[in-house]
């Protein structure tokens, strides 16, 4: 048993926060060596990533549960997501991962200017990603493709007029940010504040990149208008909870839609379509629910068609029936999960951007070297994880049932 004592640096015996900085820059007082500090940070960030994975794990679990329950609804609703936008965003994020990994290398090699450039490139990619996302979100919101409780999408009228201009609202903070940065840049230039100029120049590019992303999204979204029309056919699919057939050809889709309209008043067609499956279920003795529902549906149908008269010899029409029909809540659940997953992911992107701006400032000050590149490395790991999650989100949300 080797007996060693905690080594004591005499300079630490006098209590004080400040004296360390003069001696070893960037080495916190309670660490003994740079390596110990780096290892602590590294383990810390890995543990943090573990929490992030489990955090997203809850969302993936919700996804798996509901996709498992209603695969048809998921496939149908996924038609509303534009694969091109998703693919572009995947590429953009992958590129940002590259620049981030490169940035770590630059920090280790003391390539200060290049490090700042890499960070700026990563930030710009993040901004483009958000710009494209803004197009996606605003487009869906205006169509009423919202979480279950707010879902208002109407296949007969997919693009309702009026309503707020969501895109404007999303862009507003970025526009304000851009103006702010540009204004500050001009002031810095006038004052000849070299350091601020060097920080604000790339930041201007970053904010501008958000609008590049918006533009890119707009082009791809409108370029896909033909595809989008085909997507409209599938709206029926989602609207009718996946019961109707996929209408691959345009005319057939329209026809479906009209059928849907005609059915609106008493709308029993959907239940009819479901009856066959329900009958199978109902034969199982252990499933009284299915049996009872089947009977109830048949009964409802009979009452509605007037073929059976109730006790007092008059058809009783239930005032509730209208609400029962064709609620689009299942499609809504897909969009709930879509918004939760991509929304939480987007929040992580924003948080990552915030931290990287701080790194950009420090990189401009040339603070990092082969002993002290921890912050870059840690943020890099975080950024790669955000990328990693998107790598899974993209096929799970955009590519199903294509």
């Amino acid at each position, binding site marked *: 048993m080797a007996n060693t004592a905690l080594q004591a640096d005499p300079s630490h015996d006098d209590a004080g926060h400040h004296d360390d900085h003069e001696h070893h820059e960037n080495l916190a007082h309670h660490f003994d060596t740079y390596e110990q500090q780096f290892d602590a940070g590294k383990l810390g960030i890995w543990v943090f990533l573990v929490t992030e994975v489990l955090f997203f794990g809850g969302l993936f679990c919700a996804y798996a549960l509901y996709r498992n329950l209603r695969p048809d609804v998921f496939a149908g609703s996924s038609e509303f997501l534009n694969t091109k936008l998703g693919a572009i965003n995947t590429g953009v994020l992958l590129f940002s991962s590259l620049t981030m990994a490169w940035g770590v290398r630059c920090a280790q090699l003391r390539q200060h200017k290049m490090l700042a450039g890499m960070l700026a490139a990563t930030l710009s990619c993040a901004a483009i990603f958000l710009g494209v996302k803004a197009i996606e979100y605003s487009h869906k919101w205006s169509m009423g493709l919202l979480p279950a409780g707010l879902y208002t999408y109407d296949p007969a009228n997919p693009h309702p007029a009026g309503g707020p201009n969501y895109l404007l609202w999303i862009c507003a903070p970025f526009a304000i940010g851009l103006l702010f940065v540009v204004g500050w840049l001009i002031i810095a230039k006038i004052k000849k504040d070299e350091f601020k100029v060097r920080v604000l120049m790339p930041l201007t590019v970053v904010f501008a990149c958000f609008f590049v992303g918006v533009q890119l999204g707009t082009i791809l979204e409108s370029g896909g208008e033909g595809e989008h029309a085909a997507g409209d056919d599938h709206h029926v699919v989602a609207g009718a909870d996946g019961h109707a057939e996929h209408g691959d050809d345009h005319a057939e889709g329209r026809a479906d839609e009209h059928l849907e309209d005609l059915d609106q008043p008493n709308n029993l067609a959907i239940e009819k379509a479901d009856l066959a499956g329900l009958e199978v279920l109902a034969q199982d003795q*252990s*499933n*009284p*629910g299915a049996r*009872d529902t089947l009977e*109830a549906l048949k009964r409802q149908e009979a009452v509605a068609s007037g073929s059976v008269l*109730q*006790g*007092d010899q*008059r058809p*009783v*029409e*239930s*005032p*509730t*029936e*209208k*609400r029962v029909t064709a609620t689009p809540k299942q499609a809504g659940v897909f969009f709930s999960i879509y918004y939760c997953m991509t929304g939480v992911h987007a929040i992580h992107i924003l948080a990552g951007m915030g931290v990287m701006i701080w790194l950009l400032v420090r990189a401009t000050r040339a603070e990092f070297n082969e002993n002290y590149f921890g912050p870059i490395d840690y943020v890099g790991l975080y950024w790669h994880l955000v990328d990693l999650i998107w790598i899974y989100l993209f096929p799970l949300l955009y590519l199903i049932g294509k």
Partner: protein
Amino acid sequence: MFDGLFLRGSHLLADTAHHLWFPEQASTYAAESDGTYSMILWISLAFFIPLAILMVYFPIKYYQRKGGKATSRVTHHNVLEVTWTIVPCIFLVIMFVRGSWGYLDMATPPEGAKQVDLTAFKWGWSMNYGKGAIHPELHVVLNQPTKVVMRSTDVLHSFFIPAFRLKQDVVPGRYITAWFQATTPTPKVSQEEYEAALAAHEESGDEVWDYDRYQMTPDGYRYFDLFCAEYCGRDHSAMQSYVVVHETQESWDEWIRKISSRGETPLAEYGEKLYQLRNCIGCHSNEPNNILVGPTFHNLYGYERQMADGETVLADEQYIRESILDPKAKVVMGFQPQMPSFKGQLSDDDIASLIAYMKTLSDRGETASEAALDDDAAAADDADAAAAQPVEAIAN
């Protein structure tokens, strides 16, 4: 001190009927559950008592003043430690096997079990025995397997009958089945006792039958408690029902006949009964100025009602009927749209009865339709007129 209590308790265990330790064993399952319980209890005591003795003995025996030194420096003893790791494991396996065995017996209802459809809602129970026989009490037949198919109309509830040692959550959006076989009857009380209770009830002037006070149902049966065990909001603790175990099928049939039709009872009187049985009383009082969850029925009929959307509606037969069948179509200002629909649960005659009862509670009720009260047929006509209204108008 808890030694004492524990031991006293296990004494009582011998006498299972004794209510201090457990409620009566009234189902096939109860004996199994209690048997497992006492087995675990004995095993636990076998571990706890020696430990407790050592916990008292050691501090007394090895007490030393400050500065004393331990007389042993043993730091570990592998054989001992492995032993006290393995031995509990054996007992745990026994407990697990026995507990799961009993449970799996419970998991699948036997063929041919009598089915009761149960609906749980805030804050009451409704048992559907088929053929329009719906009642808040659960009536079953002795030694006959009964299957309860449960659903909830609002939040989680839990179906709990202590005497049967049975508990199952009722989950909205799902049908959940539980089954049991009652082994102890809850007999009808003697006629004198029943009449005394009826008289006392009459005297008290209570709206609702006080089960706890009379220790019998309004029909004169003893009962077991049925609780809601999953927290469900304001009146969770009042969400109780009562289980009656009939000795014979005939007795059960008789009771079903009794509850399932209005018979010769006048509309308004039957309506009052429904008002209590179907738990309208839980949310709607019949007194002025006593607002519960929903509006009071006092002076409701024949008055103008202000709706949440600003519209004003006259509370006539049609409005009441609609409010029962589709409560969320028109919501009175100041109230939450909480009421479940009673569509399919109340027949037209039931609704007509309720309307007739509401008329008696309103000072405009008599004037509005005196004829209706005199004549059942006319009342039915009113209901018909209400039903004949165009559906579109109501639904919007």
